[in-house]
């Protein structure tokens, strides 16, 4: 059954009643450190099981944790990038619960004195999504459930995370998707986290409740987990919101219970995982092994100095100063690597618009199509200086547009430099006009109708002759020059 929507209001197909969802997000992001939060074990992805563990992160008796200073730095930088207030004093707490992926039987986290509070992200609709808090905590291990039992890999145990919790300021699945996109790009631009969801570096839980439009106060919220992509977040909400409405309409108040539900992307439904443990069950208390922390002005200011221009500001500048469209500005700030690459090439070439076209039409296209083996533009052997060289050569007429494109594709394919590739493709060979004229005459003779059609006013008819001349020149002739020569021949003969 399809649900009609009117802005943020969902209209029940059963009753025609109008319902409003209220959504909050909890996002865990892995900080980009070399080592774990409290021990010198390397942070690794995809390493053989339990090869990055030690007495601290496996919770051996008597092992003592020592805080990684890089975690504090990155956490503070994240807070500043998100506009949050950094606390001057903070400490770690123990969150006690028993599960096989948690070797110490407590998670070292932060409870009533998180290292920062406030801040938030503005969505394109103008809605400001407030952050309630961000705190530091350690990750748990990875569990694989088999017939023989659960198998635990503790490589991930103790990896540093920041958990951010929004206020319930979101009111649609699309809002949630946009918030996550903005959140991830801010962390990436700030260099705080690579936030790769496929590697589990960014994880999101959703809290959602619904209420009839106009009703005061919020109804029972449900937590949805197992959301491995931003799309899953959006789809799970598109299913969970109608589920709650249908439950209220069928069974009345009390039909929705406070619980944790798992999103099943294959069946496209959420289902009960467990009724949530109350907060008091976690018996939080300050971790006696970790001394109190003072976040000094020096630390905060040193991190503020490292903050780059963030994506939102860059998008605005690309439009106002470089004259790019909103769409292009959006594409070019899709990642820090793309934006940095673009800016360097644009600066060198002096032509931001041409640079924007090359980056989005050729480089990002090749990356997306898997034609080059690189995770981002930062890894390309074809550097911004190479691109600006091609742009300059095209502008000066040294290369025609088709040749320039062929050149860039060949450079990406082979990893060779621009000048070498120009030579190997023969793009530096000069085609003299008498040769070009000879090919053009041949083409006109082979297509006698072209001459008549052009003389009758249909300039487009020339197209039929350009292809054969390009072919005769081995692709080296400039299509613009061919057009000129053809026109000259036709007009001269009339």
């Amino acid at each position: 059954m399809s649900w009609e929507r009117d802005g943020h209001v969902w209209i029940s197909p059963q009753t025609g009643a109008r319902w409003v969802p209220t959504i909050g997000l909890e996002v865990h992001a892995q900080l980009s450190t070399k080592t774990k939060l409290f021990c010198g074990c390397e942070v690794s992805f995809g390493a053989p099981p339990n090869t990055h563990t030690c007495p601290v992160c496996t919770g051996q008796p008597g092992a003592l944790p020592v805080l990684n200073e890089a975690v504090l730095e990155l956490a503070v930088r994240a807070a500043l990038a998100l506009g949050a207030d950094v606390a001057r004093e903070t400490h770690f707490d123990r969150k006690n619960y028993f599960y096989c992926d948690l070797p110490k039987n407590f998670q070292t986290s932060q409870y009533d004195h998180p290292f920062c509070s406030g801040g938030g992200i503005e969505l394109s609709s103008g809605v400001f999504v407030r952050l309630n808090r961000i705190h530091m905590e350690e990750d748990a291990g990875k569990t694989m459930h088999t017939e023989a039992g659960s198998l635990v890999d503790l490589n991930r145990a103790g990896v540093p995370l920041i958990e951010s919790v929004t206020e319930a300021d979101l009111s649609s699945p699309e809002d949630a998707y946009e918030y996550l996109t903005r959140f991830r790009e801010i962390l990436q631009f700030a260099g705080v986290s690579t936030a790769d969801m496929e590697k589990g570096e960014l994880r999101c839980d959703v809290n959602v409740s619904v209420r009839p439009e106009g009703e005061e106060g919020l109804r029972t919220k449900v937590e949805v987990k197992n959301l491995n992509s931003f799309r899953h977040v959006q789809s799970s909400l598109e299913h969970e919101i109608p589920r709650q409405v249908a439950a209220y309409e069928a069974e009345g108040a009390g039909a929705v219970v406070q619980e944790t539900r798992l999103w099943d992307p294959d069946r496209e439904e959420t289902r009960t995982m467990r009724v949530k443990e109350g907060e008091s069950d976690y018996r939080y208390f300050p971790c006696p092994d970790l001394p109190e922390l003072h976040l000094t002005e020096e630390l905060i200011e040193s991190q503020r100095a490292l903050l780059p221009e963030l994506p939102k500001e860059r998008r605005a500048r690309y439009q106002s100063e470089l004259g790019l469209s909103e769409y292009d500005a959006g594409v070019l700030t899709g990642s820090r690597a793309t934006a940095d690459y673009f800016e360097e090439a644009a600066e060198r070439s002096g032509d931001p618009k041409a640079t924007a076209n090359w980056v989005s039409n050729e480089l990002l296209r090749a990356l997306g199509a898997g034609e080059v083996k690189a995770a981002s533009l930062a890894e390309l052997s074809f550097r911004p200086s190479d691109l600006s060289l091609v742009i300059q050569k095209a502008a000066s007429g040294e290369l025609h547009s088709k040749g320039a494109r062929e050149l860039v594709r060949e450079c990406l394919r082979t990893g060779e430099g621009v000048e070498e590739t120009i030579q190997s493709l023969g793009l530096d060979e000069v085609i003299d006009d008498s040769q070009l004229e000879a090919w053009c005459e041949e083409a006109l003779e082979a297509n006698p109708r072209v001459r008549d059609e052009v003389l009758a006013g249909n300039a487009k008819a020339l197209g039929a002759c350009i292809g054969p001349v390009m072919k005769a020149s081995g692709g080296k002739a400039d299509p613009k020059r061919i057009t000129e020569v053809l026109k000259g021949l036709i007009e001269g003969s009339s």
Partner: protein
Amino acid sequence: MRETADLARLDLSDEECARLEPELDSILEHFKALSELDLEGVEGTASVGLQDVTRPDVPQGSMDPETLLARAPRERDSHYQVPRAVGGSE
């Protein structure tokens, strides 16, 4: 007693509960001594003595996994093997 045991995933019999309850009470009794202290004007703190202890973000090398896994009750394919536990993770 029962709730504490449940949170710790301990399956205690009624007899065990009955025996442990007074023991737990007497442990808690010891801590009551703390509440008799006069803390008027003393600010709360999370730690005493040390402050701001950190280490540089430099890998120190991990342990041979076999050494650690050898201490586990059961091991399988270089993993810690535990009774099947589905659906309780945080």
